[in-house]
C-alpha cells in the first residue's frame, strides 16, 4: 500500500461504523472516557474499548445536566449518549481525574441510563505504596463492574497478554510521534487521524497499520517549514489542523492528552499484571490531570521543542479546562525563559467560526519566519 492509501484508512476510521462492525461480530463494546482508563483490562476481558472524547456537535440535550462552564468535551460525550450515538455499548468507564469528569459520571447515570457507568477512581498521590494499592483497588472495582455489565470474565493470564499488545502499540505510537513530522506526506490532519483512530480501531490492527505506514514513509520526501510542538487536551479541530497545513507549519512533536500522553509509559510485563498497571499509573506524569508539584510538564515541552528543533509551541487551551489553565502560566514562563515562541489558542467543541484562531496562527507563522 502507498502512503496515501494507508493514511486514508486512518482518516476513514469512523467510530459509528466500527462500533456497528464489532456489534455485528457479536463483540461487546466498552466506552472509555478521557483522560486515562485501564484499557488493557477491558481488552483482556475480550471486550472492545472505544475512546469517547466528545465531538464537535451542538449541545442541546446535555444542557439539562450541565452549567455552561463545564468543558464541551464532557458535555458532548453526554450529548452523544443522549442522542443514542453510543447505543449498543455495554458500559462506559469514566475516570475521576478532574472535577468535570467526576460530575459527568454522576450525570451519566440519569442522562444515559441504558449504558452502565463504571467509575475508575484514581489516586493523585499515586507513587506511594498506598497510592498503588488505591489504584489497584480501582482496577478491581472496574473488573467487578465490567463482569456484571457484560458477563465477561477476567483473568490475570489474559491481562498479561493484553499488556504486551498495548506496550507494542505504545512503542509504535511513540515512533510515529517522533517521525511523522519529518515527512511531507503526513499533514497535521493526517497525524491527528492516526492518533484519533487508535481509540476506535482494534489495537492489534492499529499497530500493524502504523508499522506499515512507517515502513512506507521511509525514503519519501522530507517535510519543510517551521516545526511546532502542540500541547493541550485535544488537537483535533479540523479548522486548526487545516490552517496549520495551509500555513506550512509542521507538527514535529506533541504533548497532547489525546495523543502522545497516552503512550509515554509502558506497564511491566513481569509479575502480577494488576500491580504492573498500578505501577504504570504511578510512573505516569507531565500531564495536567496528574498531580506533579514540580510541574515537569513545562520542562518536557521545552526539552521536546529543543530536541526536535521546533520553532515554536502551540498551546491549545480547551475552553473551561482548569487543569490546563493552571499549567499554562508555568509553560508560558518556561518557553519565554528558553526563548521559544509560544502561541495560546482557545479551542472548543462549540466553535462555529474559527476566524480568530486562524488569524492568530497566521501571525504566529509570520513570527516564526
Amino acid at each position, binding site marked *: 500500500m502507498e502512503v496515501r492509501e494507508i493514511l486514508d484508512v486512518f482518516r476513514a476510521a469512523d467510530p459509528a461504523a466500527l462500533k456497528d462492525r464489532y456489534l455485528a461480530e457479536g463483540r461487546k463494546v466498552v466506552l472509555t472516557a478521557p483522560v486515562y482508563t485501564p484499557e488493557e483490562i477491558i481488552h483482556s476481558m475480550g471486550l472492545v474499548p472505544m475512546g469517547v472524547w466528545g465531538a464537535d456537535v451542538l449541545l442541546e440535550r446535555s444542557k*439539562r*445536566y*450541565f*452549567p455552561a*462552564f*463545564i468543558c464541551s468535551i464532557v458535555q458532548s460525550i453526554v450529548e452523544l449518549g443522549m442522542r443514542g450515538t453510543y447505543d449498543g455499548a455495554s458500559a462506559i468507564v469514566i475516570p475521576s481525574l478532574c*472535577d*468535570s469528569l*467526576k*460530575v*459527568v459520571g*454522576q*450525570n451519566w*447515570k*440519569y*442522562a444515559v441510563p441504558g449504558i452502565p457507568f463504571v467509575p475508575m477512581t484514581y489516586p493523585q498521590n499515586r507513587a506511594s505504596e498506598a497510592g498503588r494499592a488505591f489504584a489497584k483497588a480501582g482496577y478491581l472495582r472496574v473488573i467487578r463492574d465490567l463482569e456484571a455489565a457484560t458477563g465477561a470474565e477476567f483473568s490475570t493470564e489474559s491481562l498479561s497478554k493484553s499488556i504486551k499488545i498495548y506496550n507494542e502499540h505504545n512503542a509504535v505510537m511513540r515512533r510515529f510521534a517522533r517521525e511523522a513530522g519529518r515527512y511531507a506526506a503526513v499533514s497535521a490532519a493526517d497525524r491527528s487521524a492516526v492518533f484519533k483512530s487508535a481509540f476506535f480501531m482494534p489495537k492489534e490492527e492499529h499497530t500493524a497499520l502504523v508499522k506499515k505506514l512507517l515502513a512506507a514513509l521511509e525514503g519519501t520526501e522530507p517535510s519543510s517549514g517551521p516545526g511546532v510542538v502542540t500541547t493541550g487536551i485535544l488537537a483535533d479541530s479540523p479548522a486548526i489542523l487545516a490552517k496549520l497545513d495551509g500555513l506550512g507549519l509542521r507538527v514535529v512533536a506533541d504533548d497532547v492528552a489525546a495523543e502522545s500522553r497516552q503512550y509515554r509509559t509502558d506497564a511491566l510485563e513481569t509479575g502480577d499484571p494488576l500491580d504492573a498497571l498500578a505501577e504504570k499509573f504511578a510512573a505516569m506524569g507531565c500531564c495536567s490531570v496528574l498531580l506533579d508539584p514540580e510541574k515537569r510538564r513545562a520542562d518536557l515541552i521545552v526539552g521536546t521543542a529543543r530536541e526536535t528543533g521546533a520553532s515554536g509551541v502551540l498551546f491549545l487551551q480547551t475552553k473551561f479546562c*482548569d487543569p490546563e489553565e493552571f499549567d499554562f502560566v508555568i509553560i508560558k514562563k518556561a518557553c519565554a525563559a528558553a526563548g521559544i515562541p509560544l502561541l495560546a489558542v482557545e479551542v472548543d467543541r462549540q466553535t462555529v467560526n474559527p476566524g480568530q484562531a486562524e488569524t492568530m496562527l497566521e501571525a504566529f507563522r509570520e513570527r516564526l519566519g
Partner: protein
Amino acid sequence: MVSTIYADAFGFIYDDFDGMIEAYCRVPNAINLETARDKRVRLCNSIGVDGLLVHTNRSCKLWSGFMPEMSRQIGEACGIPVVSFDGDQADPRNFSEAQYDTRVQGLTEIMESRKAGV
C-alpha cells in the same frame, strides 16, 4: 434561610485515625449524587423546608456540575420549588444582583402561593 449543607463540611465527629479517614470520606465534596441528594432531602424534610435556593458556583465544578439534576430530584422528593442563581466563591463578577433578585422573587412567589393554597 433555615438550612445549609455547609455545616456538614466543617463538623466531623470521630474517635480515632480510622474514624477520621472515614469522616473525611463523607465530606460534601467527596460523595456521589445520591448521597449528596439524600443529605439535603433529610435536611428539607426534618425542618419542613418550603423552597430550595441553589447557588451555581462558577468556581466549584464538583458541586455545580451535577447540581441541576440533583436539584430536580430534591424538588420532586420533597415537593418543593427549586430556583438557582449564578455566583462565584472567588469572583464577584459572576454574580448578578438583578438575576438574584428576580430568581428569589420568583421562588418567594411560588412558596407564598403554595402556602395560600392557590
